[in-house]
């Protein structure tokens, strides 16, 4: 870990390069995507003249490189947009303005981010509990019936697409048993209790998908640790099995789990697309699918950058955490 500052600097530079490369790729890909943006914005019945006016208004006639240049300009120095009656300044970092709704992309993202973060963080807690719990139990009870049952349950989660799990959970829990309300996003700051109740099913659906990976990793990692010398020593000294597994082995086995988790947080923001679409949670994922369908380039680029940012950030955190955790393992 010599030169933590250098590491940080290098990672930051790398992240910026990665994100810019992603924005270029998204720009090019969506530039060639079919769909007449001005016609979509204007409406299907718009006349060619009117479509032309709208295209001019949105600066769609500019060549690709110029449009990307405007995007970069907005990002670093800001941009001005006309509302018709006045001019509005979008300060740097300005991700532009939606073609379809005239909202500023950053505002859209800031409005949607709490939903996605709530979803992913809550689901993460759940999948860690489920995954690690199952993993520890199945390592401990290796080869017995209980292990097989646990494995089957977590696998059922992975094997069933989230939109099927989510819908079935919703129909059974909310529709038939009426144990929970149909999920509807409530701001955490407005009512934390309702926030949690409403998100419980989306959390569970997403967590079931991810839990199996953690269960498998925990189990493998536990088995490896359990076979290590110091654990054998504990056993030889007659330390209770429960304590060996729960306290000593688990601590050693957690390092890779922590690292995998940091990695998954970032990608799960993107993976929440299906969950948000199904449950109608107004998050980044749902908005992104909308934006893709209407070829709303500024929104797509902005949102892909944000999710990309989380992945890059999470990867960096994973590396740091792993280094820290790993040292502890060695020290132990």
């Amino acid at each position, binding site marked *: 870990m*010599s030169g933590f500052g250098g*590491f940080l600097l*290098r990672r930051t530079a*790398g992240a910026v390069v990665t994100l810019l*490369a*992603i924005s270029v790729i998204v720009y090019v*890909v969506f530039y060639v*995507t*079919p*769909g007449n943006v001005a016609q979509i914005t204007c409406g299907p019945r718009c006349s060619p003249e009117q479509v032309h006016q709208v295209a001019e208004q949105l600066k769609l006639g500019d060549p690709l490189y110029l449009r990307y240049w405007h995007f970069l300009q907005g990002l670093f120095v800001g941009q001005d947009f006309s509302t018709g009656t006045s001019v509005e300044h979008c300060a740097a970092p300005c991700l532009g303005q939606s073609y379809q709704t005239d909202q500023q992309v950053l505002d859209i993202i800031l409005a949607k981010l709490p939903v996605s973060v709530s979803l992913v963080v809550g689901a993460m807690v759940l999948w860690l509990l489920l995954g690690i719990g199952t993993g520890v139990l199945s390592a401990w009870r290796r080869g017995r019936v209980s292990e097989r049952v646990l494995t*089957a349950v977590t*696998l*059922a989660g*992975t*094997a*069933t*697409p*989230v*939109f*099927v799990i989510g*819908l*079935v959970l919703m*129909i059974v829990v909310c529709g038939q048993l009426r144990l929970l309300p149909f999920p509807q996003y409530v701001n955490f700051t407005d009512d934390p209790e309702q926030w949690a109740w409403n998100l419980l099913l989306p959390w569970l659906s997403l967590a079931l998908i991810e839990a199996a990976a953690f269960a498998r*990793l925990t189990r*493998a*990692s536990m*088995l*490896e640790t*359990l*076979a*290590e*010398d110091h654990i054998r020593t504990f056993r030889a000294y007659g330390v209770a099995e429960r304590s060996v597994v729960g306290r000593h082995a688990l601590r050693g086995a957690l390092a*890779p*789990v922590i*690292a995998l988790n*940091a*990695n998954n947080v970032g990608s799960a923001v*993107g*993976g929440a*697309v*299906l969950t948000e679409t199904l449950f109608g949670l107004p998050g980044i994922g749902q908005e*992104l*699918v909308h934006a*893709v*369908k209407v070829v709303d380039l500024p929104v*797509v680029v902005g949102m*892909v950058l944000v*999710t*990309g940012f989380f*992945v*890059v950030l999470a*990867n*960096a955190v994973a*590396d740091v*955490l*792993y*280094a820290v955790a*790993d040292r502890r*393992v*060695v020290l132990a």
Partner: protein
Amino acid sequence: MSEALAVVETAGTGTSVPAVSGARQFWRRLRAQRAALVAAAVVALLVLVALAAPLLTALEGQDPTTYHPTLIDSARGGVPIGSFGGVSADHWLGVEPQTGRDMFARLVYGARVSLGVALAATVVQVAIGVAVGVAAALGNRWVDQLLSRITDIIVSMPLMIMSLALLAIVPSSFPRPVLVTLVIGLIAWGTIAKIVRAQTLSLKGLDYVSAARLSGWGTWRIARRELLPGLAAPVITYAALLVPANISVEAALSFLGVGVKPPTPSWGQMLTAADVWYQAAPQYLLLPAGALFVTVLALTVLGDGVRTALDPRAASRLRVGTGRKAATGTGTAAGHATEKEASA
């Protein structure tokens, strides 16, 4: 690039030391595991069913595309007439709501697409991942930097969103199953590349590889003779996990409306169409969901068995004396990588 992930994945598969055992040993070890054998049989059966789909449906006397309007109740949204979704001697698993198409035929034909796409996409992912990972680990600093950066970009892009765009761009005349395969394969190779790079780095540091290098072997020869066998275990294990994941991705793409095109059935497409029918015609949802579940379960158990067979140390009794070494090996990968990162 996140080194931690790669290390984690290899740690999870528990194969930091190459399996030097021969093929015969592998088969012996695999045969020793009953669960893996059952799983292998199930997978073989599924593949067989997929291959023999035309034969099986001919046996039933049905095909996956013909409509049977008399078998459904049009006034009630097209729900199948009769119990269990219209199960009969003619229609072994009943018929599909709204169309009356034969469920058995659609299920076995769907296996072709789902398994085919998932397996082929896995092959693409593994091929690219291994090539990029090995090249990054063995190449000079610049090659490694470049490839690692590309891997980072690939990993950081939301797969679903890029698939939506890519599948919209390509002309519709391009065969759809091939396209879906390529899109999944080309977008989701990042993780395997990371695993392979980390594993290769750790192998590179091992005595026998260093010895080979010292005795003047070329990079290609080292890669082929000494590294690839060592990579086999983690790659095969991870690939076994990729197959079911790819089946799910295919289903998710169908859910978002860009999967394989009708009338070609796929399990993902069936699930997507069926989810709203859960209450009115449960078997419509349960059949593809069950098929998907069995497939994923079998592949995962098989993957587990393969890992155990490839890596003798996984059996904990063999771990005596090598445990610390394994940990050091893993540590080397991370340490090596961090050093590289820091020095660059």
